[in-house]
């Protein structure tokens, strides 16, 4: 190393920081900042309640990872299970995220993913049981179709009530959730329960209808490959078809879309039906890949986690798989933290909530960047004023 290092690196680092500040000021690349901030605050909170905060923190961050080094016993099985659980969870959440995000793009704030998922799963299971004698080539497509149709139809309802009767889709989709969950329990316990199960549940699905595991020891199925494809398809539909164009226009500027003669009513119904379709697929994932049967007490409420995923992805379908993975990873990390350390799981829930709060505070980072840039310019640094002047976009 020579000692004659010029001051150039310092200057370019300054310029780099300036560029970074400007990007953040314009609202670009703020998600990592939000995550980092949430994790930092979370660490501070952990330090308050834990005797060994660093270890607890590492458990949260690395807990779900499988171990790759070869110890005396090879891989630790428990770690694969937790890793698998994170991926399984991510698949469900990604599909539910799509179920929320697509209606959202048409400005339909539906909360009905839960009900659509329940009924979609039930339809898929009923189809699989009815076609138990057929090979997988028939059973699986038929079950998929059933899940999508029933989920989509249940999703269509709030959209239809919105355009036909002006009913708030928030209220109708929530009410339809209640109806769907009770309908699910009624049908399951009255007509589909397996007397030999020992608890109220459907019979086990025939082997032909089960989705096999890609990773041994987990329930990670081919859905892992299907989800990014579905997200891509949803994005392509939005970006590259007439219907997707109408959907975005209706969501961004409804009065404009109306005056342009776009089929507003049809588009609204399409958006909620598409959402239902994805929620139905989430149901199929739960029944066919994770559980192998449907218990009557299938826990409700997962649909609202889809809302968080959609929010993290800012309703961009292409970002949803990653957002779902991130969120599922945090959830699994929370389990690891809870099991392996003295930190209660409640703390993990708090940190998850913090991440969401930071993400939705869209203007926080641009504001901070602007303040920082002003502070630097006052200290005489080459701050934001180094841009090429581009007047004329004011007012």
């Amino acid at each position, binding site marked *: 190393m020579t000692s004659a290092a010029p001051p150039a690196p310092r200057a370019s680092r300054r310029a780099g920081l300036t560029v970074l500040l400007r990007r953040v000021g314009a609202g670009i690349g703020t998600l990592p900042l939000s995550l980092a901030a949430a994790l930092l605050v979370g660490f501070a909170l952990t330090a308050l309640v834990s005797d060994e905060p660093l270890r607890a923190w590492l458990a949260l961050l690395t807990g779900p990872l499988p171990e790759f080094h070869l110890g005396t016993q090879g891989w630790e099985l428990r770690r694969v299970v937790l890793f698998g659980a994170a991926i399984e969870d991510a698949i469900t959440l990604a599909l539910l995220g799509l179920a929320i995000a697509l209606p959202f793009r048409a400005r339909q704030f539906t909360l009905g993913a839960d009900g659509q998922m329940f009924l979609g799963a039930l339809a898929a299971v009923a189809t699989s049981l009815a076609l138990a004698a057929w090979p997988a080539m028939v059973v699986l497509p038929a079950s998929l179709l059933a899940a999508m149709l029933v989920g989509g139809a249940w999703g269509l309802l709030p959209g239809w009530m919105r355009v036909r009767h002006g009913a708030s889709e928030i209220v109708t989709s929530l009410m339809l959730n209640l109806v769907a969950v009770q309908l699910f329990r009624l049908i399951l316990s009255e007509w589909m329960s397996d007397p030999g199960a020992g608890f109220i549940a459907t019979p086990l699905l025939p082997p032909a209808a089960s989705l096999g595991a890609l990773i041994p020891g987990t329930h990670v199925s081919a859905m892992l490959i299907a989800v990014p494809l579905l997200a891509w398809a949803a994005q392509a539909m939005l970006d590259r078809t*007439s219907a997707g164009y109408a959907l975005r226009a209706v969501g961004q500027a409804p009065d404009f*879309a109306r005056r342009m*003669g776009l089929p507003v009513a049809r588009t609204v119904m399409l958006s909620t039906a598409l959402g239902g379709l994805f929620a139905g697929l989430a149901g199929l994932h739960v029944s066919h890949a994770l559980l192998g049967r449907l218990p009557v007490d299938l826990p409700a409420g997962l649909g609202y986690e889809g809302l968080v995923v959609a929010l993290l992805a800012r309703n961009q379908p292409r970002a949803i798989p990653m957002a779902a993975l991130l969120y599922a990873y945090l959830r699994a990390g929370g389990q690891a933290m809870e099991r392996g350390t003295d930190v209660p799981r409640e703390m993990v829930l708090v940190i998850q909530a913090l991440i969401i709060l930071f993400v939705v505070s869209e203007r926080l980072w641009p504001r901070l960047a602007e303040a920082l840039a002003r502070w630097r310019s006052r200290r005489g640094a080459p701050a934001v004023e180094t841009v090429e002047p581009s007047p004329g976009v004011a007012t």
Partner: protein
Amino acid sequence: MSAAMNTPWDTATSAAMNIAMGASSDTPPGSAPIGAATPGRLSLHGVSKRYPTGTLAVDQVSLSIAPGEVHAIVGENGAGKSTVMKMLYGLEQPSAGDIRLDGRPVRWRTPREAIAAGMGLVPQHVTLVPSFTVAENVVLGQEPRRGPLLDTRVAIEQVAETARRFGLPLDPRTPVSRLSLGEQQAVGLLKALHQGARILMLDEPTAVLAPQQAAALMTALRRYADDGLAVILITHRIAEIREVSDRFTVLRGGRVAGSAATRDVGEAEIAAMVVGRAVVPRRSRPSPASERRTPVLSMRAVAVTDAGGRQTLEDLTLEIAGGEILGIAGVEGNGQGLLADVLAGLVRAERGQVSVDGVPLRGQGDAGIRAARAAGVAALPEDRLHDGVAPDMSITENAIANRHAEPPVVRRGVPGWFGALDLGGAARETARLLRDFGVVAASPEVPIRSLSGGNMQKVVLAREIALAPRLLVASQPTRGVDIGACESLHERLGALRDSGAAVLLISADLDELLALSDRIAVMSHGRLVGHFAAAEVDARRLGLYMTGVCHDPAARADLDAPFTPAEPCSPSASVTPSAPVAPSARSALSAPSTPSAPSTPSAPDEERLP
């Protein structure tokens, strides 16, 4: 409203106001020459505003405004006028340079701080709570209280007192929802004055006013300045600068392009400063003298009430032939918007017939809109940002909105609604439109909200014309559009007319109506009250009909209808109440517009109400 309150901007109370303000002055008369130390003097020194995105909206602007002065800030859209105003009102902070008040640098972080320092803003669209009374709106934010409750009686007294002192004839007890747009603006002005403004900023205040109302407002502003307030008038109407201001500053591209005492320069010079080149005044082009043709648009005895019941159309009969522009003049809110909505298919006529090329327009809502579009109706909506574009979508996506399901935007051969968009084709098509219309844009993929008003309107017009409409309904086509783009839009409208389409031009800009239209109809309270050949009428006469001073009870605007006779002008008996400005119209028009010497500035605190 009492009888005395029927004339906003009434000149009668100016004497009372003079006394009130003169008495409150604690500065010895004539002792303070206008200079850096004069109380209430506002100055900007090399003020720049750069947004975090890198946009330099205001660049090294310096100007100064003294009490007793009306200072006009002029410039095209995007010149930085609004940004300067926002900085002066604490909505934005300068990135560099100083704002000084009475020589001391100030830094307002919120409008509240700016107001406390004596700034007052009357925005272009005054935001009021419709269900509140005038008094409640005016005291909002600094309510007189009795215990935890609003002291309504004191509020009314205080507001009435302010209104009296400043000659604003508004009844504090009237709910704002009953006021016209012009009166609502007067409430905005009253609010700023009531908050103790020493420096009054008005953002394009005459955009919503009839000529007589505008003239009266100018007279009032002149008077406030003469009584010691400083008035900053943001405008792009050169006539207003000439009429009322002492000095003006021209902004172009965020910089000061020129500044002068108004009496030293002529209109043409100001216009050249604004656009950066000399502007040739347009003159009305006589329409091709062909015999009467069959109408493209025909409306017969149409009557309709809008959902809110605020606007109506009554017994409206009009026709427009192909190759003709029919102008609609009227004070805003007199049914023009409803007329445009009926033609666009949003609202169905309750009685009467509307047809385009002989095809009756039926249905309403989505079906009505599609029927109207299928019949060949295109529209430039009045509220461009809300109805004309999807602001956050790209220029391309906005430009293809009326063709989103057909070639060349959709690939040929792919049927139906899930047809794949041909993004390349759409981009090429858009690039062609942008080139044709001379739209300045970084790229067709940037959000359309980044365009200036003029460029945005060019995109909207390009889109609407692209399908060769039979009828174009143009509502306020050049509102908020700079002079250069305005000319080009006018040429396009003229070209569309010459190609054989019918154009309905609804505009508050009478010069525009007179320059473009073949015939002009005046609307008041949902009726036609006058019908003129554009070549034989002037702004003053239109103004008399717009404000209800005159009224032609038999006015129709079909192709065979007679024009409203020149004399006698029948004072409107049947239309009540007439537009509130009417009685003062003539006096306002004849009011002297030469600036008088600034009077002694008054002390800020004394101007406020006890």
